[in-house]
């Protein structure tokens, strides 16, 4: 919403400066977004007078002028045809920045003649489009006076954000009312005087709504004005509309726009000679359409309020008028409409038709239902003043909707909700200044003015009082402490995430944060396919772009794509992770927190030969690190080779606690997936399902079990077993560990070998077993017995035998 300072002052008698007005608006909740003060913007430009204008000796179209300026008499070379003796001009001194041509002036020689500054055109000063010649200031202008002031172009323009709760501030008078209440001046808005009709209105109006939809347009008022002369608006009106960014159209239309901004009261004018039969406000009919003033055709339906005549729908009530019945310069008989349209229906219709008009903006937020007839009177008066004509009586269909509300208001509410002590007298004065009527019963009974649909209850009145008092009065108070030392605040799930992040970063991975959505095609590669995504409700209806159309079932597509983007920039040795949500359905429980990561590995060579490219076991370690940091007991973790299909079928695994509980997956990303993504492999990835980790059992004490520091030396023995080449290492290790649980403290697999000396289809796996005696040193016989037990256990579990 924009208005000018002079416009405001038609409603507010004030001595306040522009800066004070802006500050007061901000303090009252009218958030000023932009102030354009032409006097400030154009302060470099002052009035000069051309004393002499001689032809340039070297150029026919240039003139060498002597110009009286605030800086003395200067020689200025000028190309404008209207540079003549005696003209009052807009003088720009050397050093001034001329906005319209984006140039800072310097002393110049033009075809050999020195020129000190410039005389500007309207376009050069961004005061208009005129560039035919230089500005011709009025003769009364004084040398040295500001150009903006001399041209009457110094009216500052204020733009502010109208919040949806304050439809009254869509009119300048609403702004003035707030400022007056805030103590900045006196509200001097005049109530429109009725214009006496000189004949009965010949144009019939009907409201024709089915039962239950009467509120679509409860009141429709209008009158005819005969014998008007339409045409361009007078300068004051055209200037005013231009100042706030509107294009003047014709006097009749401009008057409706004036009221839209002056009083937040949209109106519509019809060329009465183009209307056929009665004007009727009704619901639209299927198949109806009309051509609107924006030169587009719109289909209407039965949810919309249309204004129609016998020929059918003409326009959408409260949104846009029709082209066929619009006013033109030829219009002589005008029918003026002032109506009240239901905000919600207007909002729905406007959204459906995607029409953003000033009228819709106001009706959908709620116009003042008490200002329908006064608005009509006011428009009539201005039209008569500008266009002449003879007005009819006013005709009203329906009745003003009852918007009266009374709020029971204990004045102590202000203190209860804001902590500010406001004297009840002051509270009453503020409410009164804002148009409320206060009856000081106990509690107070406060009548809400018709232009404030946002006021429902006590809290709203508290805000009215507090915002006028000013939020600067809020005390700064500390919340009551609940405990001398606060208790832990994070849930175990939250703590897990933090721990997993820090553990992964400590392993050298970089934490990324990527979109929760991803390319639908990529998403389909990391779940059970596109149908699954749709069935789970994970497809967005209005994605920001087509490549962000689905909620991600896994974060891997985003991370893998990010790896490739980095590789394309030359960063082809990189590990990324993210600890964040993934989505398996649109239900709350479908959202799972996953620690996922991906690696592309091309390590730099090092003289120590210590570099090692990442592989499946690097990401297995990543996954285990995340799971362990998140609190799972990893000594019971098992690995199975049944990872989801986006992993390489032979080089991937699932980390499990028992057969049913998967805590993570890891492996090489399936080459087919990489190909579909245009990614150069190999890429290794993991996912740790943090939410699946069983909660730690609450413990009664923080005491740790006593340390068992055994005195007896452990004994180490090596075993090499020949087993089937397909045997998972896990099976062998499990067999060895289980052979003699009391003594076997540690089993470490130190060699896996296939080749000479090992039969085809077999492999050799060598383990070092640590035996920890507890009560007495082991005898050779005892060690032999354990060794035999181990060999027997391996034979039983894996059919493997000691390597000869």
């Amino acid at each position, binding site marked *: 919403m924009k208005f000018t300072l002079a416009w405001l002052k038609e409603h507010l008698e004030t001595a306040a400066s522009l800066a004070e007005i802006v500050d007061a608006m901000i*303090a009252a909740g009218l*958030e000023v977004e932009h102030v354009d003060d032409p006097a400030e913007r154009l302060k470099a430009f002052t009035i000069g007078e051309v004393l002499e204008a001689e032809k340039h000796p070297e150029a026919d179209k240039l003139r060498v002028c002597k110009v009286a300026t605030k800086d003395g008499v200067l020689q200025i070379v000028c190309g404008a045809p209207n540079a003549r003796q005696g003209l009052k001009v807009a003088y720009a001194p050397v050093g001034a920045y001329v906005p319209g041509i984006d140039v800072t002036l310097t002393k110049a020689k033009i075809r050999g003649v020195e020129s000190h500054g410039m005389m500007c055109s309207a376009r050069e000063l961004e005061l208009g489009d005129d560039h035919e010649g230089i500005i011709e200031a009025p003769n009364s202008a004084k040398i040295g006076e500001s150009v903006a002031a001399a041209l009457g172009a110094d009216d500052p323009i204020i733009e502010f954000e109208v919040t*949806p709760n304050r439809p009254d501030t869509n009119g300048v008078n609403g702004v003035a009312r707030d400022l007056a209440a805030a103590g900045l001046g006196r509200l001097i808005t005049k109530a429109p005087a009725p214009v006496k009709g000189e004949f009965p209105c010949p144009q019939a109006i009907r409201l024709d709504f089915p039962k239950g939809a009467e509120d679509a347009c409860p009141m429709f008022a209008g009158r005819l004005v005969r014998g008007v002369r339409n045409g361009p608006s007078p300068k004051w009106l055209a200037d005013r509309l231009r100042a706030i960014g509107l294009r003047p159209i014709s006097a009749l239309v401009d008057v409706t726009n004036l009221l839209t901004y002056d009083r937040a009261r949209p109106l519509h004018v019809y060329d009465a000679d183009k209307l056929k039969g009665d004007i009727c406000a009704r619901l639209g009919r299927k198949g109806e359409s009309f051509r609107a003033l924006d030169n587009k055709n719109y289909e209407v339906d039965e949810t919309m309020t249309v204004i129609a005549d016998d020929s059918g729908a003409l326009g959408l009530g409260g949104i846009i008028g029709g082209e066929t019945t619009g006013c033109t310069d030829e219009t002589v008989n005008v029918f003026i409409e002032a109506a009240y349209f239901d905000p*919600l229906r207007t*909002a729905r219709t406007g*959204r459906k038709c995607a029409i953003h008009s000033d009228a819709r903006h106001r009706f*959908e937020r709620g116009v003042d239902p008490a200002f329908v007839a006064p608005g009509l009177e006011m428009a009539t008066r201005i039209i008569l003043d500008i266009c002449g004509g003879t007005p009819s009586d006013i005709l009203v269909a329906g009745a003003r909707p009852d918007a009266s509300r009374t709020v029971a208001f204990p004045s102590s509410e202000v203190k*209860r*909700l*804001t*902590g*500010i002590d406001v004297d009840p007298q002051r509270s009453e004065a503020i409410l009164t200044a804002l148009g409320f009527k206060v009856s000081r019963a106990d509690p107070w009974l406060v009548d809400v003015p018709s232009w404030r649909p946002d006021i*429902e209850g*006590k*809290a709203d009145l508290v*805000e009215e009082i*507090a*915002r006028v008092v000013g*939020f600067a009065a*809020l*005390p*700064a*108070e*500390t*919340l009551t*402490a*609940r405990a001398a030392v*606060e208790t832990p*605040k*994070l849930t175990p799930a*939250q703590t897990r995430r*933090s721990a997993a992040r*820090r553990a992964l*970063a*400590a*392993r*050298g991975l*970089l*934490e990324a*944060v*990527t*979109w*929760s959505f991803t390319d639908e095609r990529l998403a389909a590669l990391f779940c059970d396919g596109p149908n699954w995504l749709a069935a789970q*409700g994970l*497809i*967005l*209806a209005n994605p920001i772009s087509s490549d*962000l159309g689905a*909620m991600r079932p896994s974060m891997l597509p*985003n991370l893998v794509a*990010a790896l490739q*983007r980095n590789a394309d920039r030359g*960063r082809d040795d990189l590990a*990324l992770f993210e600890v964040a*949500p993934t989505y398996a359905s*649109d239900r*709350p429980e479908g*959202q799972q927190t996953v620690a996922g990561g991906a690696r592309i590995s091309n390590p730099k060579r*090092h003289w120590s030969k210590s*570099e090692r490219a990442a592989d499946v076991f690097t990401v297995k370690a990543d996954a285990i690190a995340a799971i362990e940091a998140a609190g799972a007991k990893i000594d019971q973790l098992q690995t199975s080779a049944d990872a989801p299909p986006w992993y390489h079928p032979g080089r991937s695994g699932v980390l499990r606690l028992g057969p049913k509980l998967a805590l993570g997956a890891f492996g090489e990303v399936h080459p087919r997936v990489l190909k579909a993504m245009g990614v150069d492999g190999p890429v290794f990835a993991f996912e740790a399902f943090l939410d699946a980790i069983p909660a730690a059992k609450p413990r009664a004490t923080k005491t740790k079990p006593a340390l068992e520091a055994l005195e007896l030396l452990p004994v180490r023995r090596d075993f090499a077993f020949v087993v089937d080449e397909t045997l998972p290492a896990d099976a062998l290790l499990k067999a060895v560990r289980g052979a003699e649980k009391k003594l076997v403290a540690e089993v470490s697999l130190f060699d896996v070998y296939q080749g000479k000396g090992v039969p085809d289809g077999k492999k050799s796996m060598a383990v070092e077993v640590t035996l920890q005696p507890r009560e007495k040193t082991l005898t050779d016989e005892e060690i032999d017995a354990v060794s035999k037990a181990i060999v027997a256990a391996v034979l039983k579990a894996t059919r493997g035998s000691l390597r000869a």
Partner: protein
Amino acid sequence: MSDLETLERETLAKIAAAETIAALEDARVAALGKKGVVSERMKALGQLAPEERKAAGAALNVLKDKIAAAIDAKKQKLEDAALDERLATEKIDVTLPIAPSPRGRIHPVTQAMEEIVAIFSAMGFDVAEGPDIEDDFHNFTALNFPPDHPAREMHDTFFFNEKEDGGRMLLRTHTSPVQIRTMMTRKPPIRIIIPGRTFRCDSDQTHTPMFHQVEGLVIDRETHMGHLKGTLEAFCKAYFEIDSVKTRFRPHFFPFTEPSAEMDIGYERVGPKDSGEIRIGQGAKWMEILGSGMVHPNVLRNCGLDPDEYQGFAFGMGIDRLAMLKYGIPDLRDFFAADARWIEHYGFDPLDMPNLATGLSR
């Protein structure tokens, strides 16, 4: 006795002359070995008369100790020399570079979020969460956005495809639905913050379709807007790690609070116009950082709470923006680009866990 002196002189000379451990060992054997001269003399003591034996034995023992000490000293010296000689051959180039260990980094959003949690937990706030995919009721209706009301258009909402029953889910446009979920399941007093992902269908230089918000909610029987101001000022001081902060509360409109306010903080720009640094807490300029207000009576009612009995405040602010302001990160869009150069530059060491005892940041 001059015989003993001679023996001593000769033996010590032999020890002194030994150049190697082996030569020294020879000297030791020659003197103190089983058949060494000193040992032989010891054996011969038995043949002396008892009164002579005592004196001669004492003298021999003194000599024996002297020789043994001389051998030990010489042995130490030879061993030191041998070690020095060996070490002199073992020189390596210690200027060779160490093998690089990869440096992991924590994303600035995580760091800022954990800083925020550290501050609010010290003020007694629990940390609550809710789903990103929400329904209309929790995201709008319960928060006093009537259906079709223009206030809904303040939020550019991502919707999911309509279901068979006509309902459609959406991506939460703010963290406020968790206010509803909390108030409907917990009795006051409530004091929570709600960090999380939020989504709006908007993308330009300063907007991304996904961003992070932290919401605050306090419901009890006494908390008013003064507490809101005190809490947020305390938060800003702690978060920006500054001694004082200038704030300005301005009336604003949010459907779910009444009265509603936006909070600005004072700042100034130091240095060049476009690349300068933003100093929070001082200066004449104002920057909006959050929206807030007293929880709307309709919202309390929608959650089954009596607005005449319970009251409290709510606020919401952008975590990404807070991180940008504190750490001088210029562009919001970079947060989500997963560019390794950016993460390494703006990210944090995993050992830097935000903690009020040590100060939030290094």
